């Protein structure tokens, strides 16, 4: 039953992914002329030269002489094989620019998400169980503060604190000496030392939001009759809390994953610019500004696919958590 649901859910993703690829392709096609025209223009403006043969090869490779439909199929065919096109800005294949950044973006988002859930979950429970206590009020106040402060401002404050108090190099995810070094143990440690600042900055608003969600969910559940039944059974308060109301309050909390993931990824853009992080946000922005359309289209494609995957994960988690969800 569950297996069939998973398969069905995966099949439902196909039309969504198709639509995403169409939109991404439309973005690639947006500027007038094809990308080779702008490529030649950039090259010539830079004083470079390109042979007619080279142009012809590229033209064939991306089927630029064919109609739009052929071009789309050639493009998506290439994408499926890992060839995302050419970035004029970087003068490298898009995939070279892309993967390192997507990886780091994913790492930061994942770390932020773990941070968000680890912090929001216990605080949410505490706030609900000790409703209107001093602690609840404090967390509520801090939560709203977190929601209200723009990410970039928090970024600047943390950068300042980190530099003056810890004397740590700020900005970026690596210290200068590791910037282009190959992966090593020391580089990983350096990464972790840098990671906490963006994670806190990106996660604060989401944490504040999720605390409220968890608190409200749990408050709804705490007065449900099944809690009373469990109490009348002789269960201790702590076990009762975790086994029944918290378990039920988890559902909305989990379904949040679906839109928390894209929110974290897109919310990271401004922070990344301020902190000069080598993630996708800043690159996407400059790609859009400089009409580096293959790069921009590819980023949008990949981020959208991540969103779809996030929704899939949250749906599957929910189906696993709640037996009432019908698999039909």
């Amino acid at each position, binding site marked *: 039953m569950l297996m069939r649901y998973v398969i069905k859910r995966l099949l439902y993703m196909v039309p969504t992914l198709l639509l995403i690829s169409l939109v991404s392709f439309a973005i690639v096609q947006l500027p007038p002329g094809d990308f080779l025209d702008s490529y030649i223009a950039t090259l010539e403006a830079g004083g470079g030269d390109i042979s007619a043969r080279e142009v012809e090869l590229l033209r064939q490779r991306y089927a630029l002489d064919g109609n739009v439909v052929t071009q789309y199929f050639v493009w998506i065919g290439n994408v499926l094989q890992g060839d995302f096109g050419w970035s004029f800005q970087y003068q490298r294949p898009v995939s070279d620019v892309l993967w390192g950044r997507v990886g780091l973006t994913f790492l930061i988002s994942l770390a932020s998400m773990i941070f968000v859930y680890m912090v929001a979950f216990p605080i949410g429970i505490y706030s609900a169980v000790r409703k209107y206590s001093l602690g609840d009020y404090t967390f509520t106040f801090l939560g709203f503060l977190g929601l209200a402060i723009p990410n970039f401002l928090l970024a600047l404050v943390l950068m300042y604190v980190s530099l003056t108090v810890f004397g740590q190099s700020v900005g970026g995810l690596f210290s200068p000496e590791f910037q282009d070094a190959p992966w090593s143990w020391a580089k990983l440690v350096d990464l972790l030392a840098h990671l906490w600042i963006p994670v806190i900055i990106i996660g604060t608003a989401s944490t504040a939001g999720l605390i409220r969600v968890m608190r409200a969910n749990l408050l709804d559940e705490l007065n449900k009759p099944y809690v009373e039944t*469990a109490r009348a059974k*002789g269960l201790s308060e702590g076990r009762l809390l975790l086994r029944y109301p918290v378990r039920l309050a988890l559902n909305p909390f989990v379904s949040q994953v679906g839109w928390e993931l894209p929110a974290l990824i897109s919310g990271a853009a401004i922070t990344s610019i301020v902190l000069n992080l080598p993630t996708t946000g800043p690159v996407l922005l400059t790609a859009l500004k400089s009409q580096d359309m293959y790069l921009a289209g590819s980023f949008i494609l990949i981020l959208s696919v991540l969103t779809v995957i996030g929704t899939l994960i949250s749906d599957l988690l929910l189906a696993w958590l709640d037996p009432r969800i019908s698999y039909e």
Partner: protein
Amino acid sequence: MTAMDGTLQDKSPNAADPVLEVRGLSTHFALRQGVLKAVENISFTVKRGKTLCIVGESGSGKSVAARSILQIVPSPGKIVSGQMVLHRRRGSTIDLAALDPRSAKMRAVRGARISMIFQEPMSSLSPVHKIGFQIEESLVLHTNLDKPARRKRVLELLRQVEISEPEAAADRYPFEYSGGMRQRAMIAMALACEPDVLIADEPTTALDVTTQAEILDLIARLQADHGMGVMFITHDMGVVAEIADEVCVMFRGKVVEQGPVDNIFHAPEHPYTRMLIGTARKLEARAEAKPPFRAGASILMVEGLTKTFEKRTGFIRKTTVRTEAVKSASFTLRDGETLGIVGESGSGKTTLGQMILRTVEPTAGKVLYHGRAGGAVDVTALNREGMRDIYGDIRMVFQDPHNSLNPRMTVEQIIAEPLRNSGWSSSDSHARVKELLDLVGLPAQVMERYPHAFSGGQRQRIGIARALAPEPRIIVADEATSALDVSLRAQVLELLLSIQKRMSLSFLFISHDISVIRYFCDRVAVMRQGEIVEIGEVDQVCTTPQHGYTKALLSAVPHPNPRARRLATRHRYKTERTET
């Protein structure tokens, strides 16, 4: 039935020994507006093998009293004084009131020595845990049984509460159970550790009468088997008469009268007790105020009304499940007549009412309405404009007085809404609202206030005033008195009777409660699984029912006379649907 098959055993040497003695118990709630004395200085005794019924209306403190015993009173409630002495099997006693609510000692009593079952079988079980797990949990907490032994005991318990195929049933979730099955599972859970006292807080209120009868049977049989004391909380005097040994009547937090059931029913002393019994007895017969039924011209003819709900699944939305909520229902409502529609949950009675006003679109059939101008119109064929007139002539009164009034509108706005919709000026409608409030027995000053300021009974009056506003000819009342306390129910019925006398009104009165129908209606249609199985004059249907289901329904209604208990000898209607 199985009570006499030899399993009757007395575990305690003295069956009628007190097992729980409550002395001078007071439970208060410190609220911002002051101290609410939910329970004030009450005393009673539960005896082994006997049933003590605590009876009272909403707000009487009966549920708080029950929760006080287990020390699970919701915050900010606190036991302020009193003793609750539990006599254990080996003879030692323990005062529960002296224990800390969170202490291990108190927890060892809960679910083991004293168990409790609750009103809402739907929400009293965790929706995401298997039935077997929830029953087993009590065993984990209070016994040293290992896993296989616990499983064995769970299956044994499910068998005891007559759940078929216990192996499969244990691994199901509550949402896969019917209401009656859930309540059985709750009882199994409560009995897991063979408690000395079972507290049942309105365990059958949310169930259909036939299911209620089954559950009452079950509790009585298990009580005989296990010799436990039962403390049964209810508002229904009929149930009290059927099952109680002793009765304790509560009113506003105090016990106003207590004694053996026969004394309470046949020699009641307190006026409140008399009122409760009087109201219950009154509903055993037709209203005296009711004029003899005379057949007028037909005003509403329902012909072959059918509703089929389709569940579509899959990619191409193929219809996989068809539910016939109402199967070709036909009846005629006459001018000035009250036609009752009685049936249990899922019988399609509500859908039938909704289709007449087309809040649910019928799949097939006609609703012919004879308007004031003469000539019949088919309501099901009217467009929006045509329905406007119908909405003025046929009005609805709903079940839930708390949710059927918009909380952001004043009483005046609520009642005047149908008037304003048909173009009344504000001064005209103001005068009319005043008149209507007077008609339903509310002072004109309440106009400015919002629904939250009123009690359930008052709100239902407001709902009735709203229905009466455009001078309708037909009122469709869907369980209009079901959410009200007994005394209020009687008042609202009296109100409807007096209004019907004054205005020429026809009622379509939908209810699950055949006593209310018998009291209030001229004719009755009995519905079962979407079909009208019997229709006729109320007296005839109630005294000489023709259909087996009607017989079963009538005999399952508890009789408010302990000397003439009838549930034990009731008629059972065998159905293809055996779960209850």
